[in-house]
């Protein structure tokens, strides 16, 4: 009786797992996944880099600033990526719905990156990236506020200061070129 029950359990488990497809990315270790994500990201293939960076955070880099900030960047950059399909350049992501979802998730990852940042430069970099993202999407006041945070986190780092000046100039002119 016990043997029959065990067989039923074994068969039903086998049935349940049959047909399940394992994503090969899910078997990568964190460093390998991170390196592959980096290769795609460097090539401007941000959408393709996302699952690798996601894997890296799951496989051990979730508490490392590099893991989180690169996933954040991949998600944010993917929303701006342009892809050529059948000879036509179009956004890489399907629609604005996916693009906004991707950016919002990326901003969430950036918050995680801020949490695990090891020093003030890393924290400033995280805020600076957020400010650039807000600027790119058309939120100049929000970008300015975050750029000021970036500057306060590391006053010795030049990029936030330059971004602040650029945003202040544009806001004062109502965005119109001189």
């Amino acid at each position, binding site marked *: 009786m016990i043997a029959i029950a065990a067989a039923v359990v074994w068969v039903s488990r086998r049935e349940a797992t049959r047909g399940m497809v394992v994503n090969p990315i899910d078997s990568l270790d964190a460093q390998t996944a991170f390196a592959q994500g980096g290769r795609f990201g460097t090539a401007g293939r941000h959408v393709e880099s996302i699952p690798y960076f996601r894997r890296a955070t799951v496989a051990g880099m979730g508490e490392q600033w590099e893991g989180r900030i690169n996933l954040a960047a991949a998600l944010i950059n993917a929303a701006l990526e342009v892809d050529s399909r059948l000879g*036509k350049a179009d956004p890489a992501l399907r629609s*604005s719905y996916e693009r*906004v979802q991707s950016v919002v998730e990326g901003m969430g990852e950036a918050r995680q990156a801020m949490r695990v940042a090891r020093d003030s430069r890393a924290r400033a970099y995280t805020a600076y990236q957020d400010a650039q993202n*807000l600027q790119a999407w*058309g939120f100049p006041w929000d970008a300015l506020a975050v750029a000021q945070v970036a500057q306060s986190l590391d006053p010795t780092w030049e990029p936030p200061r330059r971004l602040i000046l650029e945003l202040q100039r544009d806001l004062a002119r109502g965005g119109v070129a001189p």
Partner: protein
Amino acid sequence: MNRVRFGRARIFVLALAISGCASPVPDRSETLEPMSPDSIPDAYARPSGALMAAGATRGYQVDEHGDLYDGEWKVVFTPTADGQPATPPRTIAALDRWRPVLQWVRRAGDVTWEFEAVAVPERAPRDTVLVVSLLVRARNTGNAPHRAELSVTLAPPDPDPVFVAWDARDNPRVALRWASGTARDTALAWCGESVAGATFKAATTLAPGAVFERRLLLPTYPTADHLLARNARISHARRVSEALQSANAALAGGTSFALPDSEVVSAMNAARLLLLACRERRGGAWVPIGNPFQYRDVWLRDGARVAHALAITGYGSVAREMMAGFIGYQWPNGAFLSQRGQLDGTGQALWAFEQVMLRGARPEELDPYIAAGQRAWRWIEWQRTAGRTSGTREGGSVQTLRFGTMLPFAEPRDGELVRAQLTGNDAWAIAGERALERLLRTRGRTASADSVARDRARYTDDFIAALARTGLDYVPPSWQGIGRDWGNLAVGWPCAVLPPGDPRLAATARRAWEQAGEIGLTVYGHRDSLHGYVGNDLATWALLTGWTAPADSMLDAMLHWRTASGTAAELFSRAGDFGRNLPPHPTAAAALLAQVRNRLIYDDVDTLRLTLGARRSWWQGSQVKGAPTWWGPIDLEFQHGKNQVTWRWSPVPVWTVLTLPPGTRLTSSPPAPLQGQGNRVLAPPGTREVAVSVGFID
């Protein structure tokens, strides 16, 4: 009449006859009346048709050559007679110019090639796919026999395609394969027989009067052979019949507009079916797409108009599903944004929540939208605070920003097509705050509503002050005065930032119409670029001032600029060339629906206004049933009989303003408690019927 069929086709007819016994659906396969799509007008320079369905993630465009394209592959038709190629179609028409069955005709000497196509959505979970059922029929209209040959080729897209499906495969490209009954593979087309290569050919000699038919199935995605074979068991005629019945059922599910104006009713039918079809699913929510082809994306600026149009014409549940999709566009800072630099999205989303949710949603359904709206309101006011408290150092003094109380600059890459502070963004933000206030009051949250109301009042004052600082007597596209007319045209309606009688609104309209050279339709960027819908906001504003001529002109233009399937393009030359901006455009359909509905029933204030712009012909006797309003669904009947005008409507708890037919006046004061005011009659809350004596104005 002789009919020539291939053996396989005969088998299908037999199967149909059996299945038809069990189904009351009329089988049109026995109807061999010549198709006459060319009798239906098309305002544009070249014909175009759309085969689409709600939930499907691709559609087929029927192009001016009579070929089909789904964004990944083309289906190229080459019909001939005695070796002579058939002409391209003159029109690609929907039955009655609105029903979802397309027909087109191509001619080769005495042989007429008729095409009929209908989109059949697959059942869930495959409902992202649709399959086109297409019937090709050759008819010998001459007195001598002719050799008719049909060649249908699966081909890659053109080298410079107008649109490409988001999920089209580049490498490897999709196999251009026809379905074969026994193969375990996927195919792009089915014709009922095995085809070697990408081209299916059929030929026959047609005696005088004879007819030859072939049926094809064209899925929008590669589909398993056996699924196509199973799909083919249902005849084309039955597919057509089902599509017609489904369209009728869809229209019956909304407000009924029984007007003695077949053109308007037909246009509204086409518009509503288009809006219902241009939707995609995202999880449990739905999003409105900008077009089945080149604008297969989501813009809040278009989606808000679409949801509003659906909500006011009886499709509240569909519109509410879209609002769930809109929630996905809220950013962590509280703003709503769908495309880079389009800051009008925040106000538009809040306005849509109000317009949709306050017409039929249960009170508790409002709460998530109120919560989202409050975050958006805080973002708007934070922007204004940042601008108001910032300044520039000039010499020894600090200068405040000239338009610091308005939203910051934006570069929408659309609309105003400029980088500046856009007046339309502020107008929409003010409309959004008004919407939030109403949502809060509906839930009894008076204190929060009062806070929003105070901010809105200050914002409106700041808007008017900023307008004065421009030194202009009209509302410019941007506070800096540059850009194309776009959001500034919405300041009077629907944003209601300024009252209808404000002279700056009249000046804005005059300026836009002067650029167009006519009252009504407006142009975009160039005098020869007519815009299909943006001028409708001015037309509706004019209607609210009692000036019907611009609305009449706009409605005439919207009725004129329709394809043979009853839909409209967004932007086109006066010669009707829409270039690569393919119809149908849902926002144009939304504008038409909003205008007609507002002419009949307008409830955007605390008063119900009936027959605000009812055209003369509608007064022969019109009925509207099941129109959603702030006060619940209402019915309306109105008629102009001999020297008397009557209205009957569902009573509402607010005053109703009744507008007399065009060119008439009251011949005596209406009996109390009714009040006469010029060409209007005011009826107190609870009134359900009014009859007044009128005469024509000399």
